[in-house]
């Protein structure tokens, strides 16, 4: 089949439009069921436990090492200009504004998003979702919405942990290893980091990424082909789509915040 026949293009566009419509309807329903989820908070709590607590170790360790590396590389550049004292500011700004939310979201997609997709996909493959529908239980309300809100709650907390641990890692390398004056390290940082403009924007980013990653994971699981192969494909797609969406959204958000 040739790809350039108008009918083919029309068919492809119509298919994509259907996907977009399905995705927006699902997001709409997830938001609508917020009330139900928060009333049965136990469901959300279990998901925060599953998505958040179990991701804590990988997030904290990654944050620590990113902080180490940032301090080393930042020192390498800054000492050429004789401003190694600004290392604290460099580490804190890069982590809080950019690396914290983005790297935490990428790790979250890999650690928690995949498990969400696989879980939902297998429920679908095992026709558990259909069984719930038979019992007049809405699977979006009972299964998907608590997972969505659990992820949305867990992600900003994880990003904050990432940034904080990273700053401590930067301090460990900068002050303990490279011998930067601790007063200059913290002082420059405190002078240059703004609570609303830097920390606040980082929090906004991490909330948006939390929504994005969790939603992509749930959508892929919900739409997975009900076969082992389909579930494996959906899991892969979760990582690819969520990562790309996070990086793309990050640029858009940074550009928006930059102009304000």
């Amino acid at each position, binding site marked *: 089949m040739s790809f350039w026949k108008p009918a083919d293009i029309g068919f492809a566009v119509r298919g994509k439009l259907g996907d977009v419509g399905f995705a927006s309807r699902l997001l709409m329903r997830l938001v609508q069921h917020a009330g139900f989820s928060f009333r*049965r*908070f*136990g469901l959300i*709590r*279990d998901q*925060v*436990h599953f998505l*958040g*607590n179990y991701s*804590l170790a990988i997030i904290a360790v990654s944050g620590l090492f990113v902080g180490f590396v940032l301090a080393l590389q930042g020192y390498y550049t800054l000492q050429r200009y004789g401003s190694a004292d600004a290392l*604290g500011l460099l580490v*804190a700004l890069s982590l*809080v504004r950019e690396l914290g939310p983005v790297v935490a979201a990428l790790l979250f997609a890999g650690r928690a998003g995949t498990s969400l997709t696989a879980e939902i996909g297998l429920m679908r493959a095992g026709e558990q979702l259909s069984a719930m529908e038979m019992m007049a239980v809405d699977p979006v309300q009972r299964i998907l919405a608590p997972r969505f809100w659990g992820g949305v709650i*867990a992600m*900003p*907390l*994880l990003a*904050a*942990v990432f*940034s*904080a*641990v990273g*700053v401590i890692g930067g301090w460990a390398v900068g002050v303990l290893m490279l011998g930067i004056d601790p007063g200059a390290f*913290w002082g420059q*940082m*405190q*002078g240059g*980091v*703004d*609570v609303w403009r*830097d*920390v606040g924007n*980082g*929090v906004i980013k991490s909330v948006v990424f939390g929504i994005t990653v969790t939603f992509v994971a749930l959508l892929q699981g919900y739409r997975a082909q009900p076969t082992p192969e389909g579930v494996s494909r959906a899991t892969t797609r979760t990582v690819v789509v969520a990562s790309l969406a996070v990086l793309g959204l990050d640029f858009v958000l940074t550009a928006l915040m930059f102009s304000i």
Partner: protein
Amino acid sequence: MERSKSDVWVGLFVLIGAAALLFLALQSANLLSLNFQKTYGVTARFDNIGGLKPQTAVKSSGVVVGRVESITFDDKSFQASVSLALQTRYSFPKDSSLKILTSGLLGEQYIGIEAGADEKNLQAGDTITSTQSAVVLENLIGQFLYNKAAEGGNSSSNSSGNTSGNSNKK
């Protein structure tokens, strides 16, 4: 709602996350120093503010005593009108003078306030007129070159007429 084993862990997780955010806000952004102390507003007119921005510190003897609220241009006097918020616990004489200074060679600009000798103190709404503008590098270099050229012209015109005793004048 029944209690469950995961309650503890979720609670701990949320606490750790909140602690991390608090750490970032307090330790790295230094929220406490934003001090919500009462301030009084004073306006100052500068010929040139250089790179001054809102939220810049106002320092006296190096201690932060206030912040720049806003900067506007006054098209009556063709000067920059800078409104400052000084902390109420510090009072300054009415004839205090302001300078725009730079911290370090490439550092941020800030306003230095030097106390005058007046009996009365600055009140809210007062205007400070004795100000010294920011140093603009181009003007400085221009002035330097101008002086150098004038000096060079002097010495050359002198040397043509009278070579003796002029060379060690400098």
